[in-house]
């Protein structure tokens, strides 16, 4: 719901935006040409109909001349034209709409690909809702524009041109007179655009204010009630509501002055012009009634397209705003770190080395300062420290979520930067603090997208982490559905599934971000036992909150404000009686109150 309120921080709409969008039509040149061809054909068969009636009136009805066969032919031709027009129109309308849908599909995939390439820092800075809205809602607004441009504008302008051509064919002078309509209608469009577009924007703004107010009130209702502010907020809402009503009312007024009622007046004016012309002609020579009929019937066709276009002008503008926001993301320069240099190094042993690594997210405040350590193949290195000490940042760098700028990280002696993404992802297994489960079932969450992992491997991985017992008890077993964020499972169960996920990928290096969330002791013990098993034979870099779980680590780094303040084994650190010792005492003191 917050999306509306973010509308104001939209990007600037430039002239280039429209043409850039139009370029998306290029790959569909042929289909576009076909659709345009059919549109032309439909318009031609459409404007021919009054001409047939004119022929009927002038040649047969008025002279009272009725050759049967000719009349049947004429009638058949008329109905054929009606049917052809309809058939052409069905196909071209569908073609245009499918074209628009395909273009949006392309745009969406482009956008998604772009998002996949963005650096993680982009996600840190952009709220999820905004990004989702760019990929879905904004592209939907652009779809609207393609439909508008292709279906409404191209269609209606073609019809207008067709009608004008037919008028010229029938009577050049009168058609020239009717050309007066073009600047008149142009002026109305221009004026309507000028008057209505600020109103339209004000209306949108007030509506989003209104919705924001409602949304916020609903969220904070308990406070509003506890503080007895219901009457005041009702009044405030009432005022916003009223101001929105006023602008909508103004909108209705403007529409009433400039839209349909006015085009009706112009239509009647044009009708007067036609009648005056023929009336004037009749004083000097005989008048062709058929042409009069055709003109009158063309005029009535002339105004529907104009009404359509007028009504679509505003959504066109909205789409331009959306398009510029989409392009803003597509043009974002931030890129995730990718493989650099030649060759395709392979991780075999799993030796991890940090060499004087410093890091800052924002370029000013360093969250890691001169970190150096080595994890030999099969060793466990544990990182401990208070919140904000730099543990997670260390892992973020190792996983290459962020680029290493100062210092160097190597795996098996090769710079981290040189590994391909595939190699890194397949050899390093991350177990996240907050096990993130996707909507799907148990199997799909363990396998993720890797189709090489067979159902058997999934089962083995689950057995390995001892998740099989509870999975078997779930209704549906390995195909038990998992809802949003795995809400149906307990924390412990979610963790076990995320362990199984890691094991199914059989990594060389294990990166553990231990959960802070508390689970009951029994589950905790089970999880620890599983972790022990997982670490066996793998190089492990672990963030630990419970010091009890890393007593057997080969190296423990105690971080404080981004620096390693103590290092050693559990025993060594305890005997130092420093920070680690105090942390240890703290945890010995009372595990029962770890909830806070």
């Amino acid at each position: 719901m917050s999306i509306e309120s973010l509308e104001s921080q939209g990007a600037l709409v430039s002239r280039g935006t429209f043409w850039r969008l139009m370029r998306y039509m290029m790959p569909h040149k042929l289909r576009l040409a076909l659709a345009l061809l059919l549109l032309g054909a439909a318009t031609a068969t459409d404007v021919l109909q009054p001409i047939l009636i004119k022929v009927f009136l002038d040649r047969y009805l008025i002279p009272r001349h009725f050759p049967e066969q000719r009349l049947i032919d004429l009638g058949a031709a008329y109905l054929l034209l009606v049917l052809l027009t309809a058939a052409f129109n069905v196909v071209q309308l569908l073609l245009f709409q499918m074209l628009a849908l395909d273009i949006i599909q392309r745009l969406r995939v482009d956008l998604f690909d772009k998002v996949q390439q963005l650096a993680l820092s982009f996600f840190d800075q952009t709220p999820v809702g905004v990004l989702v809205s760019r990929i879905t809602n904004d592209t939907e607004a652009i779809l609207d524009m393609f439909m508008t441009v292709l279906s409404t504008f191209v269609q209606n302008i073609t019809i207008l041109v067709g009608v004008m051509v037919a008028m010229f064919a029938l009577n050049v002078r009168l058609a020239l007179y009717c050309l007066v309509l073009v600047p008149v209608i142009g002026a109305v469009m221009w004026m309507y655009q000028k008057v209505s577009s600020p109103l339209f924007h004000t209306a949108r703004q007030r509506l989003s204010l209104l919705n924001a107010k409602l949304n916020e009130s609903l969220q904070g209702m308990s406070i509003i009630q506890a503080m007895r502010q219901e009457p005041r907020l009702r009044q405030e809402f009432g005022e916003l509501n009223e101001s929105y009503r006023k602008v909508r009312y103004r909108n209705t007024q403007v529409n009433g002055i400039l839209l349909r009622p006015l085009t009706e007046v112009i239509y009647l004016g044009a009708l007067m012009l036609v009648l005056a012309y023929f009336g004037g002609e009749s004083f000097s020579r005989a008048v062709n009634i058929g042409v009069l009929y055709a003109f009158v019937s063309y005029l009535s066709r002339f105004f529907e397209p104009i009404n359509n276009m007028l009504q679509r002008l505003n959504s066109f503008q909205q789409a331009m705003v959306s398009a510029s926001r989409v392009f803003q993301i597509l043009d974002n320069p931030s890129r995730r770190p990718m493989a650099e240099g030649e060759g395709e190094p392979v991780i075999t042993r799993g030796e991890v080395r940090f060499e004087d690594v410093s890091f800052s997210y924002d370029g000013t405040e360093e969250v890691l300062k001169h970190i150096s350590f080595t994890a030999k193949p099969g060793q466990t290195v544990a990182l401990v420290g208070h919140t904000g000490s730099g543990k997670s940042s260390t892992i973020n760098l190792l996983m290459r979520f962020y680029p290493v700028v100062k210092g160097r990280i190597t795996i098996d002696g090769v710079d981290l930067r040189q590994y391909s993404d595939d190699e890194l992802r397949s050899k390093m297994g991350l177990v996240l603090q907050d096990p993130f489960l996707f909507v799907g079932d148990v199997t799909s969450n363990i396998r993720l997208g890797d189709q090489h992992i067979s159902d058997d491997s999934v089962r083995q991985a689950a057995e390995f982490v001892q998740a099989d017992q509870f999975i078997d008890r779930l209704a549906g077993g390995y195909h038990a559905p998992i809802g949003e964020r795995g809400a149906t499972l307990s924390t412990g169960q979610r963790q076990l599934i995320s362990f199984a996920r890691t094991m199914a990928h059989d990594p060389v290096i294990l990166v553990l971000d231990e959960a802070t969330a508390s689970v009951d002791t029994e589950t905790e013990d089970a999880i620890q036992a599983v972790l022990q098993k997982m670490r066996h034979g793998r190089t492990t870099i672990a963030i630990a909150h419970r010091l009890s779980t890393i007593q057997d680590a080969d190296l423990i780094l105690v971080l404080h404000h981004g620096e390693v303040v103590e290092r050693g084994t559990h025993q060594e650190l305890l005997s130092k009686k420093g920070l680690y010792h105090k942390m240890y005492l703290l945890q010995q003191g009372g595990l029962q109150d770890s909830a806070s």
Partner: protein
Amino acid sequence: MGRFQIIERIVIVRVFRDLMWFFKAHQRQYIAGIFYLIIVSLISLVPPALVGMVVNRLTRHAMTVGFLVLMLALIAAVALLSYGLRYLWRIRLYGGSILLATELRDRLYRHFTQLSPEFYHHHRIGDLMAHATNDVNAVQETAGDGVFMMVDAVVSGAVLIATMALSISWKLTVISLLPLPIMAFVISRYGRMLHDRFMVAQEAFSDINDRVQEYISGVRVVRAFGQEAWERQNFVELSRDVVSKNVAVAKIDSLFDPTISVIIGVSYFLSLAVGALFVVHGRMNLGSLTTFTLYLGQLIWPMMAFGFLFNVVERGSASYDRIQTLLNIQPTVVDAPNALVGVPSGDIQFQIPAFQYPESERHVLERIALTVPTGSTLGIVGRTGAGKTTLMRLLLREFDIDEGDITIGGTSIYQMRLHALRQALAYAPQDDFLFSMTIRENIAFQKPDASMDAVEEVARIASIHDDILRFPDGYDTVVGERGATLSGGQKQRISIARALLADAEILLLDDTLSAVDARTEAAILSALKNNRDRRTTLVATHRLSAVEHADQIIVLEHGRIVERGTHAELIALGDRYYDMYQRQQLEALVEQGGQVG
């Protein structure tokens, strides 16, 4: 088809009957609007008749300047008159529908402010928003376009058909109108199919929305496991699905206009063919035939309106029902009959044998017997879920208890007006929710007319004054969405200042100092002590330092009071409170990097 239409007609009757209260309240506006609309449809009959007359004169070669000028002048007059009237009916009818939407939104909002927290447990904010936006829009459409279409379809349709039949030829009218009922049926049918398929397409759209949302939330997992290609494939499939479902919509959409044009084409064909026959037989002149085809052209819209009407009204009716259902939900916490108006004062007493939240099996509080003397401070400690917040929510009457009682100054809070009770309570909740207004307005939320001095004074007590001055616009800084631009500690302190400004006898601090550092906490607590002379304070907290100086401390565990006493007594007891205390001392030490102590 017969039954189909009867059902439809019932829907129309019902929704207009449901909305009758509104139409009645704005009688004059609606009667005027409908009246103008009828006049418009009547004078629209004139130009085609004039064209017919001109054609007749022309065929008879009997045109005169005077006649021509008269005809043109009449058309001009009709043009001007109908321009004015078209404008006026739009203002009346659409203006009315906008007013209805405004009124419905107001009613919903008013109702939302009256509903108890229990209601908000059962309803998602997104759904409530949808009622106040989409459903209100659908009803607005019914009251605006719906009324217009109905009047236009019935009045214009009837007037046109009557004129064609009476003034030109009823036989020709019947013949040329044969295809038109099919049109109304087709439109209604297509309209429904469009709507249904559109709903399916919307679902696909919302699927892709959810999927993208999930992907972005879990982007770290995706990258850690190198699932990008799979995610992409997934996304492409979903977006293809969206396309294919939209193509299904487009198919009907593309059929819509062409189908109608075929029906109209056939209708024209019939009228011209049969009309020509009549002209030949001298039963009709060419001018009348021209007039007739022009009328036929005018009849297209009322017929289409007839088709659209069903769908608009059907949607409006469903939406109106949803809004009514919502409006009929009654709040669970209400004033007792003859409730006391006076603001309560005095000792607070809790007597709660057991309490559980509605539709919950588990007792959140059990055997609570507690007295808080006026002017004293009560500390409530315990783990998350122990019942600390519940105790405060019960005092605020966010929920009512089934057994036992809570009294202030000897009077049950259930005998007081809700507003009177809440006037005695100042509340700084755990969820430090701030509104997106300026900081000053947030602090003065309860007293919008408080002076700047008063605002600054409470800000000082809450140790937030200096922070506020450092913001770009000081007290006029607007708080971002859900207070996003402020740190947790700052939000908490503003929330405390907000509660203090209420100047109520009883202050409730629900873990409102958790994100504030120890030194600031001490400053706030001592300022509070000086300021809150002879006032009662309830402090729920995780952090024991916040209650060290309380007159009475209770330790809650699983909803029961397991220890009670002063800080010194509880330390001496050497049990739960003592353990917590030791632990927190050590924690503080670690937080400071083990340097101090």
